[in-house]
């Protein structure tokens, strides 16, 4: 954004929105909207509390495990689908169905199957993230330049060398793109999982605050979550830009 020729740093418009929030909060417009300054003050208060730290730890644990499984299962599956017609035909319909399915509706089923604890939340997170990771890895491998593969073959590359030195790198921009979107979806997954199962992590915290009408606390936690999700996505976008210089030239 530019004002009178001066380049403002990215996201400066957030300041404007924050100001609006503050003003609306101060007019006492609604009990649900406390002023931003109060929310920030509360945020620093609750960050030190054990309840918050426990919630943060549990959420981070569920999130990281969920994303880990999504990546470790998703990328090889996608690469295999991209290289093998048969596997592709078998799995693609399912991947497409789950990609667009309302996964939230599945959470109660998972609760029945895997209990009301951490396990269900991790699986929910993985289910939110994995499909787009698979699809992107698959596309990355499928659009690889044929002559790169022929080049590697003509110089006598073993299948393993071709995989690690050519296929993986050629698909990396797409893979990272998929991981970024997958992780954003995983944030949704971990929160929705916790809200529905609501015994652990921020789910429990939300439950506590909203039942007791602690709106400042409620918003403070929300701001933390949004900021976390946003920073993770920006960090991944940065990684993606670092490989994008060759994305267009494969």
């Amino acid at each position: 954004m530019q004002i009178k020729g001066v380049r403002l740093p990215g996201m400066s418009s957030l300041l404007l929105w924050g100001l609006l929030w503050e003003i609306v909060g101060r007019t006492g417009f609604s009990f649900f909207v406390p002023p931003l300054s109060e929310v920030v003050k509360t945020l620093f208060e609750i960050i030190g509390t054990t309840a918050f730290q426990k919630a943060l730890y549990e959420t981070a644990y569920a999130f990281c495990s969920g994303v880990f499984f999504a990546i470790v299962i998703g990328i090889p599956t996608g690469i295999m689908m991209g290289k093998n017609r048969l596997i592709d035909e078998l799995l693609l319909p399912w991947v497409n169905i789950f990609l667009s399915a309302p996964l939230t509706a599945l959470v109660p089923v998972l609760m029945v199957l895997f209990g009301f604890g951490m396990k269900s939340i991790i699986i929910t997170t993985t289910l939110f993230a994995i499909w787009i990771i698979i699809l992107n890895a698959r596309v990355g491998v499928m659009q690889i330049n044929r002559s790169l593969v022929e080049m590697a073959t003509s110089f006598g590359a073993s299948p393993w060398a071709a995989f690690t030195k050519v296929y993986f790198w050629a698909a990396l921009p797409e893979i990272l793109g998929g991981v970024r979107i997958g992780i954003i979806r995983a944030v949704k997954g971990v929160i929705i999982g916790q809200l529905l199962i609501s015994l652990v992590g921020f789910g429990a915290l939300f439950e506590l605050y909203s039942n007791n009408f602690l709106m400042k606390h409620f918003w403070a936690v929300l701001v933390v979550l949004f900021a976390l999700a946003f920073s993770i996505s920006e960090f991944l976008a940065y990684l993606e830009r670092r490989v994008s210089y060759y994305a267009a030239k494969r």
Partner: protein
Amino acid sequence: MLQTNALAEDTVLTQTDNAVSVSGVSKNYGEVEALKNLTLDFPRGQLTSLLGPSGCGKTTLLKIIAGLLEPTEGKILVNGSPVTGPGEDRAFVFQDFALLPWASVIRNVAFGLELRGVAKSEREDIANKYIKEVGLEGFEKSFPHELSGGMRQRVGLARALSVDADVLLMDEPFSAVDEQTRRKFQEDLLALVANENKTFIFVTHSIEEAVYVSDQIAILLPRPSRVADIIRPTGLREKDVASIRRDSEYLDIVDEIWASLKSYVE
């Protein structure tokens, strides 16, 4: 005495010293007969051009020799032994360069050696030598997207040279560069053929280019492809590179080839 010796040498050359020999090769892509019963020899140490209209199977033949494609029928011998797949005795120069966009020039040039398990310092020494030879000194750390088309093709050429294969297979290597660069490349190629004791198989669309650089020109006719004619511009090698294009033999051969290809161009 002298004459018989020369004659004996000549027969040895033509009879046994073929780096590559293709006999009775056919290739079908499903219904499409790309090559049919094609037989052609490639004398060692010489440059043979494959010339013919688009779609007549030049790339197909080159890839079969490289071991990237299997012929439907027929046999290919490289240095006397049959081809079953890619091998260290052949190196390919790709029309679209086929460089790794995420790797520097030096890694790209050394990539063939890397795949063959040569140690890093050793392969970089070799790569450096060929980077110099193709005139890319100072660009070792650059990436392909920072180079011009002509420079990229030099990287592809250096990579093929650095594995020190007997046979270089080049699929329209100069088609993606501008005319000036192309002429420079053609001169460089002549020097390369003279200095490196390698056999070159060179696909081109350009009659002038084929006559300029070749020891032997195989004219292929459209599908199912066969060798229509083999032309050996005998007197041109001894001439100065700068004056070949004004030479009467050169001009005659260009005309002759054009006359025989004309009927196939709609």
